């Protein structure tokens, strides 16, 4: 696993502290070209690992990567799925199964694949929840075909709702499907890391990869920082840190020194949009990690 990963929240107007900042970012990155410029800058600074949501624009980025295999020969992707906001309204409108139907059957290749098992009609098919999950994963994975995918993450809202429901099969089957069909490891994004780690271990997933907010002020760390530190020190898993600067509330050096002080953290995901910030952050992480 890579020590330093560039995240993508800044490209999609996601900021957990300020809607003004989010707006400014959404304006700056309205087209894929502006996003690519930042990715190229990071790549030229020596960053090879990138975490992406399965946003429509990421599909366009992936097309670009495939078109220029030499430029991105060493690129390593850490995608997170699904991009939840595209599902949210349909779920409110049509319920979970209505939404699943809509998304599963919106995809032509899925329609084809499903054709063979559709003898009993849509109803019988959607009763097999795990099969639906596998098809949704396949639909989302398509944008990364031919690229070097290291770890596929389950997005945090989905992870945390499923964790709340305590349905072990979802976690086990998600991991099994990606490992078997794509030969990639799975990870889980969460806002509730301590609870999730114990649950994953309980599911029998060995040494799981768990990516969560980890920062000096305890922002987006439920239930509290102490539980995070205790779990990192006592459980067998691979922690990854994101939101290390708490959306800008903690200055970079201070933020990184805290995270680097947690010895078991494997990877640090950070967001930045300028060469200066990317270079500086990378340098501080490398210094602090020595």
């Amino acid at each position, binding site marked *: 696993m890579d020590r330093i990963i560039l995240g993508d929240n800044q490209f999609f107007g996601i900021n957990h502290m300020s809607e003004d900042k989010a707006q400014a970012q959404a304006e700056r990155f309205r087209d894929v070209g502006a996003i690519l410029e930042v990715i190229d800058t990071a790549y030229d600074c020596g960053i090879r690992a990138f975490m992406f949501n399965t946003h429509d624009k990421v599909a366009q980025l992936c097309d670009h990567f495939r078109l220029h295999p030499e430029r991105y020969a060493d690129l390593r992707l850490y995608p997170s799925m699904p991009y939840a906001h595209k599902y949210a309204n349909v779920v*409110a409108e049509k319920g979970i199964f209505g939404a699943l139907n809509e998304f599963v059957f919106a995809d032509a290749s899925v329609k084809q694949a499903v054709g063979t098992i559709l003898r009993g009609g849509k*109803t019988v098919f959607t009763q097999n929840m795990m099969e639906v999950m596998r098809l949704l994963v396949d639909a989302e994975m398509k944008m990364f075909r031919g690229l070097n995918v290291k770890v596929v993450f389950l997005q945090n809202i989905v992870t945390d709702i499923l964790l*709340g*429901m305590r349905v072990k099969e979802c976690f086990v089957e998600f991991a099994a499907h990606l490992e078997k069909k794509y030969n990639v490891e799975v990870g889980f994004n969460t806002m509730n890391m301590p609870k999730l780690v114990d649950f994953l271990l309980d599911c029998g997933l060995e040494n799981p990869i768990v990516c969560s907010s980890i920062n000096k002020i305890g922002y987006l760390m439920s*239930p509290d920082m102490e539980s995070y530190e205790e779990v990192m020190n006592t459980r067998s898993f691979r922690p990854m840190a994101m939101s290390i600067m708490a959306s800008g509330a903690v200055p970079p050096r201070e933020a990184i020194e805290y995270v680097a002080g947690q010895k078991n953290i494997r990877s640090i995901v950070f967001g930045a949009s300028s060469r200066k910030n990317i270079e500086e952050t990378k340098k501080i992480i490398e210094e602090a990690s020595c």
Partner: protein
Amino acid sequence: MLKGGIVGFGRMGLTHFSILNNHPEVNFVAVCDASNLMRKNIGKFMGLETFDDYRTMFDDMGLDFVIVATPTATHAETVASAIDHGLHVFVEKPFALNSDDGRRLVAAVEQAGLVNQVGYVIRFNDVFREVKKLLAADAIGELYFFRMEMFAPTVLKEVKSGWRSKKAQGGGCLYDFASHGVDLINYIVGRPVAVAGSVLQNIYSVAVEDLVSTTMLYDDGLQGSLLVNWCDASCRKPAYRMELYGKQGKIIADLHAYKVHFKGEPPLDGFESGWNARYITEFVEPVRYYVRGFEFTRQLDYFIDGILTDRRESLCSFADGLAADEVIEKITRDAAERSC
């Protein structure tokens, strides 16, 4: 341990369930949902009792409380039955589709002495809690004007089917989305005595409105405007913005931050004359379990805490839900008169 049940296992039902399912004092035992598929999967993967009729669930399961998260048109009937069964009730917003039903439910729940709450979750947002405190401390002097704006990318093309496009089921921007703004105004500023110039405008929807605008009037000369548009493709998710103008200052707040401007010396410690920006990272308190936002956990834990501590007053009671419904009815009537 409190025994809980849920009626309506859609997007909000799921969210509420996952937040409360690992509350140390809660044991969910039953789910009622209209979908046969949903019931089968809940039974298979979660081992809960499932029902297609909430009355049977209330009769059979010996529940302490229920979460009602069905489309609005069914709230009144479901909540009335829950009160008859002596259950504490959390019901999603908006409260009821007409204020006559709402008044009956308020009377019934108060008579029964049960904990009651409506899911106006923005009341539990950390920024708006701070804004409420600032006003309670008279930080910006006498209010003379406010502006509440809400935007969301909810409806971006013509919609003909589903409960959201049916007025009789509680669809439309006014009930489904603008109700949050109406309630937040009631909570932070107070209840308007009248509304004027209300317009309910269709944009993509055929049978319901997509945009709501109105002016709210108060006895003491205060006025404010509410503008809500759920056809805004430029937003990533729902956005709330409230501006409050007082004789000594001004506040601009959204879900993540607020700015306060003081005309002269601020009356509170920790602030300076002129602009002061405060971000959620500076004052948010962590929650026990996080799904979709701090406020979702905060409102449910507040509800459960009310049952455990026998608290009778509520930060967002049925009476508050009724008050929002009454303003919504005023807006509807005002808009109808205008278009006649």
